[in-house]
């Protein structure tokens, strides 16, 4: 078994920053990600020269499925095998997923997350000449629209659910962040000619076997827009399953972390979007602090506290501006599927008193995604919280859960 000083789970901006700083501090470091390389969702496929992570043991295409057999070990699985990693300190940088809200037709092929559609295009989906509607909430919509347009898509509309007033007050707030203004201006320029509609959202998606058009609503106006793909994401939701499994306390829907990015569990740190949605700048500085703090480099870590506070204020403004409107709770019709794994419809859920009751009576949340999609959706729709997390935290091969002694030795690999 590979035994390291610092094990980082997740290789997005926070994880890369954490691994880099821990390695610079002299620690033996390993990093794990379920994607095929570093970068996370935001830097997918882009090499980042600031955080090369040379000298760090990297495990790509691997996911943590449970605690390992010993103290301070984790059980992982990749395409071919199961193995354990041992650590002295653990840094969770598990990021966030998009928040998906159910509406009639959201299960049609071609309806994806905004970030989801971008990820597909980055991994080779040809979008040239295709008609695309981008909808949901938050600045990610602009970044996605700009990227798709550059790749040749006909972006017909960006529908932002937040009202004009909220969006413009956010734009005003951004003046205090010059780098953000430059980014925003560049985005605007690359989106000339694409309508940006605040106070607008998708009410339904239609098509035969695949998406062909969406029904949009803006105030009293509603209309159909033909499209090949729709990228619809209502902001981000922290990935906290592993943290919960390891006994880290949550605060709201995110991992609770102190000023050193320490969680409530001994020797475990957390950084980035899994501790609350705040964007790439906050993720980076939290990652750096966690990397230093995990190695006892408190002086270096504390020098970054000011930078983190500034990034956090920006995150708060973001959160206020793009708060989700109540109308979105009324989109599902009785027959609209809410739990996509088990095909549980809205009419069967709205009677239930809690997520647990719904789960027991309808199998909601019991499919392979283990409530990662419907849990966040029903939290928004009904105010439910999902059950406690149980291992394996992702569908795992049976063979991975039974590791014979000799296999453990065999899996102590060097990369």
């Amino acid at each position: 078994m590979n035994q390291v000083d610092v094990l980082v789970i997740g290789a997005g901006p926070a994880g890369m920053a954490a691994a880099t700083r821990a390695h610079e501090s002299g620690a033996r470091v390993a990093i794990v990600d379920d994607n095929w390389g570093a970068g996370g969702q935001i830097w997918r496929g882009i090499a980042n020269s600031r955080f090369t992570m040379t000298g760090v043991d990297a495990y790509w295409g691997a996911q943590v499925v449970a605690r390992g057999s010993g103290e301070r070990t984790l059980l992982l699985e990749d395409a071919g095998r199961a193995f354990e990693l041992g650590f002295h300190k653990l840094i969770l940088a598990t990021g966030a997923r998009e928040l998906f809200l159910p509406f009639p037709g959201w299960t049609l092929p071609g309806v994806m997350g905004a970030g989801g559609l971008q990820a597909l295009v980055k991994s080779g989906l040809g979008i040239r000449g295709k008609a695309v509607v981008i909808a949901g909430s938050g600045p990610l919509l602009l970044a996605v629209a700009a990227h798709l347009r550059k790749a040749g898509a006909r972006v017909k509309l960006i529908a932002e659910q937040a009202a004009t007033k909220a969006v413009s007050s956010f734009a005003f707030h951004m003046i205090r962040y010059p780098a953000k203004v430059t980014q925003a201006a560049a985005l605007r320029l690359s989106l000339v000619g694409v309508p940006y509609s605040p106070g607008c959202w998708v009410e339904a998606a239609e098509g035969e076997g695949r998406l062909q058009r969406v029904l949009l609503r803006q105030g009293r106006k509603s209309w159909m827009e033909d499209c090949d793909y729709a990228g619809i994401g209502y902001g981000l939701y922290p990935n906290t399953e592993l943290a919960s499994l390891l006994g880290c306390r949550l605060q709201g829907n995110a991992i609770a972390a102190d000023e050193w990015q320490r969680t409530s569990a001994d020797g475990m740190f957390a950084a980035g979007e899994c501790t609350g949605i705040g964007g790439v700048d906050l993720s980076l500085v939290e990652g750096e602090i966690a990397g230093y703090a995990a190695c006892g480099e408190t002086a270096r870590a504390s020098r970054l506290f000011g930078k983190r506070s500034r990034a956090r204020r920006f995150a708060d403004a973001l959160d206020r501006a793009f708060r989700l409107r109540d109308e979105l709770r009324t989109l599902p019709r009785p027959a609209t599927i809410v739990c996509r794994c088990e095909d549980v419809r809205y009419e069967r859920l709205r009677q239930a008193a809690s997520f647990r009751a719904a789960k027991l009576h309808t199998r909601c949340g019991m499919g392979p995604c283990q409530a990662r999609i419907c849990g966040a959706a029903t939290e928004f729709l009904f105010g439910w919280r999902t059950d406690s997390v149980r291992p394996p935290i992702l569908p795992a091969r049976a063979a991975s859960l039974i590791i014979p002694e000799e296999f453990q030795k065999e899996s102590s690999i060097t990369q």
Partner: protein
Amino acid sequence: MPENVSIEVNGKRLKIATGTSVAACLFQAGEFSFRTSASGEPRAALCGMGICFECRVTIDGRANCRSCQMLVRDGMAIRTS
């Protein structure tokens, strides 16, 4: 320029650029039903990042592979259901 790999989607031979994910490749091939849901609906990739499990397909005989998390490989056989 990207090289091509040769793969099979539901028995049909295709040339696809190296570095393409299996999910992207299926859309490219016009295959919009990656799997059939519990109540018989066609489904395809939603989250694009390995969370939602909507994009699962059979790859080289192994069922339930998340197509958005895997890159095409020369000789790969992909089956939707």
